[in-house]
C-alpha cells in the first residue's frame, strides 16, 4: 500500500492561511491556484479546513470548497462547521469526497455515525487535535484555544472510530508550524488504539523528518507550513521519499 502525502490547507475569509499551534496565521495564498499546483505535483489527496466556521457557528465556505474541487482530480477532504446532514450534503455537492469532523463531533458524537450511515465510514474522517505538554497529552479545542482535560484523547479516538469514522486526522497542535518533526510517539499510541488509517500532521520541517514518520509506520502524513513557507514542493518531497526506499507514488 502506497503511503499518502497530503497537503493540508487552512481556509480563512476565502484565502489560505498558516500559523503556529493554531494561532498567528499568515496569508498562504489563493485556494484554487494552490490546489492546482498540488494537483500538478502529484499530491495524493488534499485536506481543506475552514478554520473559523465552527467557532463562528456557521457552515463552511462552500464556494471555496467548490473552487478547489474544480482544480483537483484527487480526493478532497473538507472540514469546518459541519454539524448537520444538510451541511454535509452541501459539502459533497461542492465536490468534496470526505468530511473531516473535529469540534462538531466533540459537541455531538452521534453526528459521526449519522453521517457515516449515509455517506459510508470511508467518507468520514475524525479530526483529533492533541496538545502535548509536560502534564501529558490533551484534546485541544481550537475554538477556545484551550485543552479539554475532561475527556482523554485516546478514549475520544476510540469512541469516534466506534461511532463510525473510517479514518483519523491526528494533529499534534504543539508542533504545528514549528518544523521540529512529527510526533511519531503520538502516532504509535493512536495506532495501537484503532485499526483505521491515521494521517499524522504537525511539525514537518524537513524531508528527513517526513521519512522518519513514514518509517515509523504512518499511513499518511499531512504537510502544511513545509509546503507554504519553504522552498520545498511536493514533487521534491515525494522524489526524496521514493529514493529513500519508501512506497511513494510519483
Amino acid at each position, binding site marked *: *500500500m502506497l503511503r499518502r502525502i497530503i497537503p493540508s490547507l487552512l481556509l480563512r475569509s476565502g484565502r489560505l492561511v498558516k500559523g503556529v499551534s493554531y494561532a498567528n496565521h499568515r496569508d498562504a495564498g489563493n485556494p484554487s491556484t494552490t490546489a492546482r499546483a498540488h494537483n500538478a505535483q502529484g499530491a495524493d489527496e488534499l485536506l481543506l479546513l475552514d478554520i473559523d466556521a465552527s467557532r463562528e457557528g456557521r457552515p463552511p465556505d462552500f464556494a471555496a470548497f467548490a473552487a478547489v474541487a474544480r482544480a483537483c*482530480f484527487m*480526493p478532497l477532504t473538507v472540514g469546518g462547521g459541519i454539524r448537520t446532514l444538510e451541511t454535509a450534503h452541501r459539502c459533497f455537492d461542492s465536490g*468534496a*469526497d470526505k468530511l473531516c469532523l473535529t469540534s462538531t463531533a466533540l459537541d455531538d458524537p452521534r453526528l459521526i455515525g449519522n453521517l457515516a450511515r*449515509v455517506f*459510508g465510514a470511508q467518507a468520514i474522517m475524525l479530526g483529533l487535535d492533541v496538545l502535548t505538554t509536560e502534564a501529558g497529552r490533551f484534546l485541544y479545542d481550537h475554538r477556545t484555544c484551550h485543552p479539554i482535560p475532561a475527556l482523554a484523547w485516546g478514549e475520544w479516538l476510540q469512541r469516534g472510530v466506534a461511532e463510525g469514522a473510517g*479514518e483519523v486526522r491526528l494533529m499534534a497542535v504543539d508542533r504545528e508550524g514549528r518544523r521540529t518533526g512529527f510526533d511519531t510517539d503520538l502516532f504509535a499510541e493512536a495506532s495501537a488504539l484503532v485499526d*483505521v488509517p491515521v494521517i499524522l500532521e504537525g511539525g514537518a520541517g524537513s524531508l528527513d523528518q517526513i521519512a522518519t514518520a513514514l518509517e515509523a509506520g504512518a499511513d499518511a502524513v499531512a504537510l502544511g507550513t513545509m509546503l507554504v513557507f519553504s522552498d520545498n514542493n511536493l514533487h521534491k518531497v515525494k522524489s526524496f521519499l521514493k529514493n529513500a526506499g519508501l512506497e511513494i507514488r510519483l
Partner: protein
Amino acid sequence: MTDSLRRVGVIDYGLANIRSVVNALSCFDVDVTVVESGSGLADVGRIVLPGVGSFDAGMKGLITRGHAEALQRRVREAGVPYLGICLGMQFLFSGSDEGSSSGLGWIDGTIVRLPSGKGHPKVPHIGWNEVQIAPSSALMAGLESPTDFYFVHGFYAPLRDTTAIATGICEYGVQFCAALEYDNVAAVQFHPEKSQLGGMKLLETFLGLPG
C-alpha cells in the same frame, strides 16, 4: 463522434458524491448531464454510475428513481456504453455481503468484505494502489501496467466470479477484481476521477469507445 455519443449521463441516486465525477468528465469535449431519474437515461449516449456509500441504500436509490429498470433497458438491451465506478461496479453483481438487497444481477457472484484484523492491512482500503492491467483492456489501453489508482472501499468483487471479465487486478490483503470489461459494460473499483493523470486518461478512453 456522433452527437448522441457526446451526451454523457451521470446517474444521481441521491447519495453518492457525483460532483467530482462531473468535474472530471467536464474536462473533455462532451455534454455531461446529471440524470436524476431513469427516464433521463433515454437520450444519453454513455452512462456513468459513480458511487460511494452503502450497497443497500444505493440499490434502493437506483430502484426508487427508476434507474435500475432504465439501466436494464439502455445498457443491457440497447448496448449503451456503461462505466461503473466503485459501488457502480458492485451493483452489477447478484448481491453483497454488505447488505441484504439484491444487486442488478448482470454478473453472477457476491461482493465480499475485505479481510481485516491481525495480519491484514487496515480496512477500509483507502489510498493509492497498483492495478495490473490486462493487455486485452480497451478501457485502460495506453496505460502502463501497473498503473496507480485511488481506492476507497471496504468490499470487493472476488476474482473467482470475474475470471473471464477482469481486466484489472489489485492486491490489498487479497487479490481482487479492480476493473472488469465485457460487451458494452466497463466497471472499476477505484476512482478514476480522483486518480489524476492515469484516471483522466481512462475517462478519456471511455468517452472515445465506440457505441
